[in-house]
C-alpha cells in the first residue's frame, strides 16, 4: 500500500458542516490529512461532519478577521501548521437585483471574498515557514458566467477568481500554490436557496438543474471533493492560478 498523498498534512476546510465542504474534509482525511472543519458554530451538523472526517471543529465567522486568526492559532496549536487551506465557506442570497438590500448584497462579498482573504492571510505565515502550501478556493460557475437573481453572489465569486489568479502568480515563487474550482450546479444544501427563489421543491430544482446541465445530471459533492484533493496534493504543482470548472458542461470557455 503506497503512502497516502496527503499524509502528514494539516488541512483546514471552511464551511465544512455540510455539502461540498463536509465532503471535501472527509476526502482530504481519507487521503491522509489531519483535518479541521470550520463553520460558524459547533452545531450537530458540524459535529457529524467532524466525526465522518475524523477531524476537529474550528469555529469562526470567516468574515471576522480576528476570529479567523484565533481559529487558525487554535488549529495550529492542536494539529500543526496548516499546509492545505480550502476556502469554501459561502453565503448566497437570491432575489431581483433592485429588490436586494445593500446589507444582503454586501454580506455575500464579506463572507465569500473577504472571508477567503482573511483565511489565506491567517495561514500564510505557517505556509511560508514550511516553504510550501496548497490553497484551493471554491468559486462558482456564477462567478465565471453570471447568474440572474444572484448578482451579489456572482460578483463575490468573480472577485475570488481575480484573487486566485493574482495570488497564484504572487505566491508560486514561495512554493505556495493557489487554484480555484468553479463548480456548476451541485446537489448541496446551498440549492435550497435556489429552490426557494424559484418557488419549486428541491426535487423539482434538481431535475431543472440536471436538465440545464449538458451532462444531464446535477453534480455531487464527491465530484468536487476528488478534484480538491488532487489540487491539494503533490501531483498538481503545474497548476498555478487556474480556475478549474467541473460544471457538467454548462460553461465551456476559459475563466
Amino acid at each position, binding site marked *: 500500500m503506497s503512502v497516502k498523498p496527503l499524509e502528514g498534512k494539516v488541512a483546514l476546510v471552511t464551511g465544512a458542516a455540510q455539502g461540498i465542504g463536509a465532503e471535501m474534509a472527509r476526502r482530504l482525511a481519507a487521503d491522509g490529512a489531519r483535518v479541521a472543519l470550520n463553520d460558524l458554530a459547533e452545531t450537530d451538523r458540524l459535529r457529524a461532519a467532524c466525526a465522518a472526517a475524523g477531524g476537529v471543529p474550528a469555529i469562526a465567522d470567516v468574515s471576522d478577521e480576528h476570529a479567523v486568526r484565533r481559529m487558525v492559532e487554535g488549529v495550529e496549536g492542536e494539529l500543526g501548521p496548516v499546509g492545505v487551506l480550502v476556502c469554501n465557506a459561502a453565503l448566497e442570497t437570491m432575489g431581483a437585483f433592485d429588490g436586494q438590500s445593500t446589507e444582503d448584497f454586501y454580506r455575500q462579498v464579506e463572507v465569500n471574498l473577504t472571508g477567503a482573504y482573511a483565511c489565506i492571510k491567517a495561514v500564510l505565515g505557517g505556509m511560508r515557514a514550511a516553504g510550501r502550501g496548497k490553497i484551493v478556493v471554491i468559486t462558482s460557475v456564477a462567478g465565471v458566467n453570471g447568474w440572474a437573481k444572484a448578482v451579489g453572489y456572482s460578483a463575490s465569486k468573480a472577485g475570488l477568481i481575480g484573487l486566485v489568479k493574482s495570488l497564484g502568480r504572487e505566491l*508560486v515563487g514561495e512554493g505556495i500554490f493557489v487554484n480555484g474550482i468553479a463548480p456548476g450546479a451541485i446537489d448541496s444544501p446551498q440549492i435550497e436557496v435556489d429552490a426557494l427563489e424559484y418557488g419549486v421543491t428541491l426535487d423539482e430544482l434538481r431535475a431543472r438543474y440536471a436538465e440545464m446541465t449538458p451532462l444531464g445530471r446535477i453534480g455531487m459533492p464527491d465530484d468536487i471533493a476528488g478534484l480538491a484533493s488532487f489540487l491539494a496534493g503533490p*501531483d498538481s504543482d*503545474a*497548476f498555478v492560478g487556474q480556475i478549474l470548472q467541473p460544471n*457538467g458542461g454548462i460553461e465551456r470557455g476559459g475563466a
Partner: protein
Amino acid sequence: MSVTAERPRVAAVTGAAGLLGVATVQALIGKGWAVAGFDVAESSATHSAVLDLCDREAVASEVAEAVSVLGEIECLIALVGAPDPTPVDDVSFEAWRGAISSHLLSTANFAWALLPSMLERGAGNIVTVGSDVALGAPGVGVHHAAASGTVLGFTRALAIELAKTGVQVNAISAQLPGSDEPRSSPLGRDVHPREVAATAAYLADERHFFLGQVLTPNGGRVI
C-alpha cells in the same frame, strides 16, 4: 470456492512511447489500470501496439486486438504531436499537413474506434492532450499551435455532441516537453511530463463533473 480476480480497468494511451506517453502509462499502471499503448514504436504499456496512428483502419484493427487482450477500454487518453520549432516561413506543406494529421486525425481515429463500445455501455472517458501554445502560451511552431487548436475544437464539440450519452470528453492543454521559454512561466521551471500525466490520470481515475473543459497544467503560462 473459486475466487475471480478483479479485472483491472483498461485505458488506451496514444503516443505511448513518447516522453509524455511513458509518464502517462506509468501513472495509470500505478493506479491499477491495464494500459493499451499505441504508437509508432513499442511502449511500456501492458499491451503495446505499433502502428500509424493516422491510419483509420489500422487503428480500428489494433484497438480491436487490444480489447481482445485486455478487455473493454473505458478511457482514451490521446497524446499526440510533438512540438516543432520550425519558423512559419520554413514549414513545408507536408510538415503542415503532418502536424494537423498527427494531432487531429489520430485523435479522431481513436475516438471513432472506441466510441461504438463506449456508447453501447453508456459510459466512457476521453481525454485529449495538447500544447498550451493553442491557448496563446509562448511557444514555437505555428503549425503545431494550429494543430493543437484543432484538437481543442474537436474536444469541445465532441463533448457536447456526446453529453447525454455517459461519455465525458475533456482536454488537457499543458506546457509540453520540448516547448521553449520555460522561465517565462510563473512557476519558473518546466512542467514535468509526470505532472501532465498525473492530470490525465486524475481525469481517468476519478468520478468527475468535467465536460468539454480544458485543464491547464502549464505552470501558469496561461492563466
